[in-house]
């Protein structure tokens, strides 16, 4: 099993959730994070509206879903589809990280691993 984590634009949350469900991935969780990558920060006023500073980080949303190995690629594809802006993509469209998961347990039933997903 793998954990797929995607850093996305907050305004894309609904689209992404729909995309995940369409591709059959019904379990996930979402977090608010702030991040920095090629896209640096946003201009926010400091002082009394007299000058602005580029804040270090941008509000982003992290989508986390643990899936079976065989579903990995279609989920990644769905995430790319849902998040790429326009044909070319825009800076800040996000990143996807995949990492191994060794065990999953469903608390309710005690089911394990693939059965628990």
């Amino acid at each position, binding site marked *: 099993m793998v954990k797929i984590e995607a850093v996305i634009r907050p*305004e894309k949350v*609904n689209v992404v959730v729909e995309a995940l469900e369409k591709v059959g991935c019904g379990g996930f969780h979402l977090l608010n994070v*702030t991040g920095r990558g090629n896209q640096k920060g*946003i*201009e*926010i*006023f400091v002082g009394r509206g007299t000058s602005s500073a580029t804040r270090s980080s941008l509000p982003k949303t992290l989508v986390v879903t643990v899936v079976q190995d065989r579903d990995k690629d279609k989920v990644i594809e769905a995430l790319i589809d849902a998040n790429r802006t326009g044909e070319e993509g825009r800076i800040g469209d996000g990143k996807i990280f995949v990492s191994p998961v060794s065990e999953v347990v469903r608390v309710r039933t005690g089911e394990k691993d693939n059965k628990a997903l």
Partner: protein
Amino acid sequence: MNFDTGHIAWMLVASALVLFMTPGLAFFYGGLVRAKNVVSTIMYSFMSMAVVSIVWILWGYSLAFGDSLIDIGGSSLLGDFKFFALSNIGAGGEGIPDLLFVVFQMMFAIITPALITGAFAERFKFSTYLVFLVFWITLVYAPICHWVWQSDGWLFKRGALDFAGGTVVHLNAGMAAVAAAWLVGKRRGETEGLSAHNVPFVVLGAAILWFGWFGFNAGSGLSANFQAVNAFLVTNTAAAAAMLTWTIVGYLQTKKFSAVGAATGAVAGLVAITPASGFVDASGALAIGVTVALVCYFSAKFMENSKLDDALVVFGVHGVGGLWGALMTGVFALESVGGTKGLIEGNGAIMIEQIIAVLATGAYSLIATLIILKILDVIPGLGLQVAEQTESAGLDVSEHGERGYVQDVAD
């Protein structure tokens, strides 16, 4: 110059109370939108205090309450420039200084366009809004105010009843809201399933509105007298009745007691009692409160599925509520309260006047607002709706360079 210190004391307070309603509205509306637009939504209302205060003393008051500039058969359509920049307003007055009337009326002019902003919240360009405020007060608010409240005004002369602004303020704002929602266009992206981002702010706003509304209605007789007391009581009664009705109807339909619903119900009751507050007694207020909640509840529900993206249901609450209030004023007016008989005392004629007033002010507001916005839309550098990216990132960051809430840490 025959001043009464009691009247002056009350009207000073009433003016302050009405001014305070505008930030109240800012919180009512601000709590209802998404967090990324809270600053923007608050700023729409808040800036009206700056812009309209200036426009009003320069020419707004004069157009509204000056002598007749445009006259048709003895009935006036617009005031002249007699009071331009407060000229010709001395230290005189009857009961209260004339200048205090200028001040009190200014507060009404401030809140009315602020009410409209709920319709185009989350997407209207702020720079255009500043220009809109100037034109709208000049070309829509001042004329309608003149028609209804100036002694030469054609609706006033016909005898239409509007004690504190059912047509001038609420129906007017509600119809302008329709024009605005229509021309500005829908919010982009998914807007279904949105809920208020800060319910305490919604209640805070509604509470400040309720508090300030005592100045609005009980101040509209310009005196600390029995009529003011009655207006105070009926204002409270209608708000309470509408709030209770809305909450219960909502419960019957959804099995939940919505706080946003309760707050909206209270506002609907306050809207509807506004024109009536100098003419009806508490039983009339009860009737108006209960019925307006029903009417507005189902309007709001109906509007949810409408093509018009009136984001904060301004038409549903202020348009419909103002209309209903204006008509019910005709129904429940009592001679013993305001000197005019209503339908229930057998005076059917008053209903005609109320209907004419509603149609005239509503139609004028809709059309004039459409024209103003259409022009602002095509002027280069202005335009109505912000760019898509601006909208999706939230107007707070893009238009105001601010975020409503900033946490200290991972931020």
